[in-house]
């Protein structure tokens, strides 16, 4: 084992030999599934590197797309190791399996790594204390660790971690190191400034687009407007005349589930590549056989047709249909959410160098270096040992950069031109090529009996991400990524009769997860319909929910805190209204109260109050920041136009026709965090799902008109 550790340190280019320790045994593909950290084993592995010089390096295994993992992940190690983050260096993991799952996604970083990384930190601390005790000839129990040093109680004696790291590394790693009582945490749960922020305000932070390597050329990929078309012919005469253009070659865009033709314009600089692409004429041969509901009108027509028929049952308590048929007071409504683009400001890009010796090096803003490693190795047919992944910062992602078609493009170009190349998509590529959040319908049915909600049915309708992207959905089965969000276990409303069903509507419009995934779609239907049922039962929507959540104390607490902070019970003057919603996703509960008013220019969003119960968290300020981001993105999703396809191609192309929220559209935001010692939940996404329905409910309270289709006219 020691040789392996030496090897690792050498690979990192670090000097000296020391202790490295970490975790292993992570299950793969956990990004969007429920994580079970308790099953993760503790083994030697390099998450913590302590050099003889005293330098301490911690590994962040989750790429940072703005969600704060550069601070949050090493904090778990540092808390138990007894070091502060300003005395360590932080490096990004490279995708090797020894780091376990490295995918940022599904709001999984802190909740997934909570136990294993704390255990790794605690195990290293125990080994270092034991080494100091051996060195001094005292009992380990008489020593303690603090700020990167071991101290002997009742004496002036101390030794740095670096001084005892060699000795510590000869010990067995303790399998069950003692973890700190959360009440004793010094870092976790405390306000600490993110140490990566100064570089992000000085222009020094390195994003994917900033990668530069010697001999590199630049490429602009020209994609098929109808996504799936093949190339009939290329007229590149004008493109080749553009000064700086080096070559024009046919390549492929390899998506996870399909490959399509594309053309790359290779140039000496990015501008020449862009200019060359504009001068290029590609005659696309229509591959109409590959279009399936590739116009949004066809897709929605098929979806509304599906809403008239029963779906595939995902879960059912009681016989819903029997109750619904015989009920005297019942409601039914269909809610609609559009396709959405992620539209991060940094578009997709990747830099790839396939070297003469057969090794491959990648620099890219990607959500998962482990996935990138296996993808590149498979795509190029080289062993993983020959591939090196360098993860840069991500200039936003929201799910998009977990879908690494752009990385395959750079690989394909580099192998064809035998040079290092940077591929940069334009905003037009980003907006018009997909993948997108799938558009979805929620067919809602409910039964009211004696003023109470008795039976509830959520039929989810639309394309399955697992089905399209991973070919991972068998016919006539419900997608459990999707139905899990809608399950009674998740929403916890105590309906006597509860049913979840799913109807898949296929499309060839590429889809993938988007911030909060299906929760961003189905929060809309679920929480607006709960309000509809409340009004039908002649109950206040808050009281109605609390009545259904009597056995769900964390939900009740969140709603009560929201009511208090939003001053819910105080009536608003005429022309103003508020609405609420609550949704649980990624193991966290978030509720929102949206305040709206009538103005001469229509409805205005005045204020959003949000409450989140994410269990234990690392940095309260980052929880607030993520929730602010979720409110802003949630309002965009609710009020701005979605992505539409006509003539089998995307109608939108840039921020002028696919609008994201601007500064002046920002409402006043107040965020409150529930403090408790519950197991950590997600933070990066759960604040989003309640925003649209809280707004829809507010608009109903303002106008009396029930909106069921997004976007709303605000």
């Amino acid at each position, binding site marked *: 084992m020691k040789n392996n550790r030496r090897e690792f340190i050498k690979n990192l280019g670090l000097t000296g030999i020391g202790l490295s320790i970490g975790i292993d045994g992570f299950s793969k593909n956990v990004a969007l599934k429920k994580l079970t950290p308790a099953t993760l084993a503790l083994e030697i592995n390099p998450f913590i590197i302590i050099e003889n010089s005293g330098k301490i390096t911690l590994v962040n295994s989750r790429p940072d797309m703005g969600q704060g993992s550069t601070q949050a992940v090493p904090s778990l190690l540092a808390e138990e190791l007894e070091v502060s983050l300003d005395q360590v260096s932080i490096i990004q993991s490279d995708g090797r399996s020894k780091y376990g799952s490295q995918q940022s996604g599904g709001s999984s970083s802190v909740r997934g790594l909570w136990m294993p990384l704390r255990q790794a930190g605690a195990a290293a601390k125990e080994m270092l204390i034991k080494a100091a005790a051996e060195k001094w000839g005292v009992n380990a129990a008489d020593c303690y660790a603090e700020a990167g040093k071991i101290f002997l109680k009742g004496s002036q004696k101390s030794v740095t971690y670096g001084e005892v790291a060699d000795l510590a590394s000869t010990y067995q790693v303790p399998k069950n190191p003692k973890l700190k009582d959360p009440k004793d945490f010094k870092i976790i749960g405390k306000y600490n400034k993110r140490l990566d922020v100064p570089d992000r305000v000085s222009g020094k932070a390195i994003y994917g687009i900033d990668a530069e390597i010697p001999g590199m050329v630049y490429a602009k990929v020209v994609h098929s407007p109808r996504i799936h078309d093949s190339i009939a012919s290329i007229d590149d005469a004008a493109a080749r005349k553009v000064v700086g253009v080096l070559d024009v070659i046919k390549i492929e865009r390899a998506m996870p589930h399909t490959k399509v033709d594309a053309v790359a314009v290779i140039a000496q600089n990015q501008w020449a590549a862009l200019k060359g692409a504009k001068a290029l004429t590609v005659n696309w041969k229509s591959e109409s056989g590959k279009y399936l509901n590739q116009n949004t009108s066809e897709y929605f027509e098929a979806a509304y047709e599906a809403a008239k028929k029963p779906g595939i049952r995902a879960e059912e308590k009681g016989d819903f249909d029997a109750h619904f048929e015989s009920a005297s007071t019942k409601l039914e409504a269909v809610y609609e959410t559009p396709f959405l683009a992620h539209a*991060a*400001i940094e578009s997709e890009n990747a830099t790839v160098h396939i070297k003469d010796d057969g090794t491959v090096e990648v620099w890219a803003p990607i959500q998962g270096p482990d996935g990138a490693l296996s993808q590149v190795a498979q795509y190029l047919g080289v062993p993983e040992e020959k591939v090196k992944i360098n993860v840069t910062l991500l200039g936003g992602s929201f799910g998009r950069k977990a879908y690494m078609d752009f990385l395959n493009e750079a690989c394909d170009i580099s192998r064809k031109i035998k040079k290092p190349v940077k591929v940069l998509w334009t905003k037009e590529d980003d907006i018009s090529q997909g993948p997108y959040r799938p558009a979805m319908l929620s067919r809602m049915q409910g039964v009211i009996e004696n003023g109470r909600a008795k039976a509830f049915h959520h039929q989810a309708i639309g394309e399955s991400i697992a089905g399209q992207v991973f070919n991972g959905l068998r016919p006539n089965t419900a997608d459990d990524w999707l139905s899990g969000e809608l399950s009674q276990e998740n929403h916890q409303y105590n309906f006597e009769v509860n049913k979840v069903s799913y109807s898949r509507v296929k499309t060839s419009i590429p889809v993938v997860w988007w911030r909060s995934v299906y929760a961003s779609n189905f929060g809309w239907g679920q929480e607006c319909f709960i309000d509809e049922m409340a009004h039908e039962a002649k109950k206040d929507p808050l009281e109605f929910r609390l009545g259904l959540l009597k056995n769900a104390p964390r939900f009740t607490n969140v709603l009560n805190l929201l009511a208090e902070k939003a001053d819910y019970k105080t009536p608003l003057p005429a022309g103003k209204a508020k609405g609420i919603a609550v949704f649980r996703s990624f193991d966290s509960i978030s509720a929102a109260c949206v305040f709206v008013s009538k103005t001469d220019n229509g409805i205005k969003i005045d204020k959003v109050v949000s409450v989140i119960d994410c269990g234990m968290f690392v940095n309260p300020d980052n929880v607030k920041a*993520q929730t602010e981001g979720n409110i802003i993105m949630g309002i965009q999703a609710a009020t701005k136009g979605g992505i539409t396809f006509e003539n089998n191609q995307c109608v939108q192309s840039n921020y002028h026709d696919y609008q994201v929220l601007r500064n002046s559209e920002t409402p006043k935001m107040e965020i409150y965090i529930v403090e408790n010692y519950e197991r950590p939940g997600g933070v990066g996404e759960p604040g989003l799902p309640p925003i649209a329905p809280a707004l829809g409910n507010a608009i109903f309270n303002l106008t009396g008109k029930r909106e069921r289709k997004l976007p709303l006219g605000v």
Partner: protein
Amino acid sequence: MPVFNLNINNKVYKITAEADMPLVWAIRDLANLKGTKFGCGMAHCGACTVHLDGQPIRSCQMPLSALSKKAKITTIEGIAEPTLHAVQKAWIEEQVPQCGYCQSGQIMSAVALLKTNKNPNDEEILAAMEGNLCRCGTYQRINQAIKNASKML
């Protein structure tokens, strides 16, 4: 190919480029100053904001041929020297950035605003910052940081 002597951050860069090359690419790829970001390429997002003679401009829409010989360009690297600008300090204090990709542009717009208006009100801040998109949604902190910075100047 034309040669341009570009004064960026008070240093002259000899840039050999086509005259229609937008300034953003000359700054990023030829002067190798990567702090200025490319976003939408259409002046919708403001990620590429730099100062031309003290005025904020979208460098993705400014061809090199349109620059006068005396043009002085300032990028995020230029305000950071030798220590952080008050706006950058305020950005750190408020913990504004999430991904941070748009923040060079946001900061350049804010610095330009505070140069001409030492104590902007809410409307003036919104008017100056409206062209800078932040997909992470950091606007509330941006506006607070501008107010804080105005007190430091």
